[in-house]
């Protein structure tokens, strides 16, 4: 029997958690984009040893489960390295590492798909390598990786729910806390699901729109 009042009452209780989830996403994604670009560039253009290190780093974060990474950072890193960060910073760091690893693969493929003649055309005009990259190659690569990046964004928004297991009071954490108070598992979790859906769907649509706008016809 679905108890509607419990369902509706859940939303105000979820609100603070929602804020944390949004904060986490909004903070992690830009950082991950920058780190991903740096990793992709290192793998494509850096001297071999550096490129190898970047590759190793990416493979490590791609090939281990996110939950394990977060646990390790949260429980093992403080005791083994003495680095003690607040819970929020710890999970944010873990998410940046994980998401940027996936994004960098995507970026690398995108950048690699722009033919060398484009770079040459920029250089032939007298551009520096940096200008040729940011004015010519990257805008085109970005258009190609946009859809994948957009779906990563939505993915990240949902994956932040894992941090609830580490006492970071995000949306899921609040829902699980509320459930232990009122035992309305069905209503609370349905409210939780709806919250994610309502928030993620427009984001996905927005990303689609961005993609259509920036698409490069060739």
């Amino acid at each position, binding site marked *: 029997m679905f108890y509607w009042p419990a369902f509706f009452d859940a939303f105000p209780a979820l609100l603070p958690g929602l804020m944390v989830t949004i904060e986490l996403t909004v903070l992690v994604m830009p950082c991950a984009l920058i780190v991903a670009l740096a990793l992709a560039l290192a793998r494509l253009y850096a001297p071999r040893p550096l490129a190898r290190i970047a590759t190793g780093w990416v493979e490590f974060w791609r090939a281990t489960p996110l939950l394990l990474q977060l646990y390790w950072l949260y429980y093992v890193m403080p005791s083994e390295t003495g680095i003690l960060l607040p819970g929020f910073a710890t999970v944010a760091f873990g998410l940046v590492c994980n998401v940027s690893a996936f994004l960098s693969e995507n970026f690398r493929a995108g950048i690699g798909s722009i033919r060398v003649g*484009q770079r040459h055309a920029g250089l*032939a*005009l007298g551009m520096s390598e940096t200008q040729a990259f940011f004015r010519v190659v990257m805008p085109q690569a970005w258009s190609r990786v946009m859809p994948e990046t957009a779906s990563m964004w939505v993915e990240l928004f949902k994956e932040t729910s894992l941090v609830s297991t580490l006492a970071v009071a995000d949306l899921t954490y609040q829902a699980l806390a509320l459930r232990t108070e009122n035992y309305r598992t069905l209503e609370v979790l349905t409210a939780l699901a709806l919250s994610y859906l309502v928030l993620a769907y427009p984001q996905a649509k927005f990303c689609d729109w961005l993609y259509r706008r920036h698409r490069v016809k060739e």
Partner: protein
Amino acid sequence: MSGATNRGHDARPDRRRHAGDEPALIQIEEVFHRYPTGVEALRGVSLSAHEGEVVCIIGPSGSGKSTLLRCVNGLEPIDRGRIRFGGRDVGAKGREAREIRRQIGMVFQSFELFPHMTALSNVSEGPRTVLRLPRNEVAARAREFLAKVGLADKAESLPAQLSGGQQQRVAIARALAMQPRAMLFDEATSALDPETVGEVLNVMQQLAREGMTMLVVTHEMAFARSVADWVVVMESGQVLEEGPPGRIFRAARLARTREFLHRVEHTPAPEPSGAGSDQP
């Protein structure tokens, strides 16, 4: 600049190969280039182009013509030899290389327009990003050069909305907007439909008439014959023979040159060595 007073206004016929009173604008000396794959693309190539000259480089595919052009503006490093542009060594790095490149316009076989920018933005890109001209000057200059290639009305079109010939003309305008001292054309018409080749050749011919120094790699023999001041025939990374077009096309010294010319002039498509099996 120096000693220009005692040189009369030269008429076209005797403008050729002045007797060393002025160094060539583009001077290529004994250049070697080997690709990382091991292919030796250039094996001791020397040639020069004086201010205002049109030098056409012809020869079978894979003879190193395009590689040579890329070496001239430093897109491809050279292993040995020397390339000088306006008396300065090409092949420097960083700022120095850029300084030289901005004086040399380059037109590519596959246009290489920036697909994410309109025709106008493509032409504006150099003056804006490299020369850092003020905004209104950039726009005025870009429109001027688009008009020069006859595409003033296509300013807002994206490359994908233009025909091949139009794209190549935008690419020429893009290079000209940097107001270069010389232009390099790397098989500028080879990727075009036959019906749009003419419009691009016309623009090139007009440039030649205006006195632009041009190094033109081409399979368009009619163009080389009528527009070039000097024709260089290359094969297997070497200069086979060079001279004024009249002599090269009518009385080439080497049998191999005559064979090559015979082959291209009797093949409708601009791909002379298509068969590939014509040599033992």
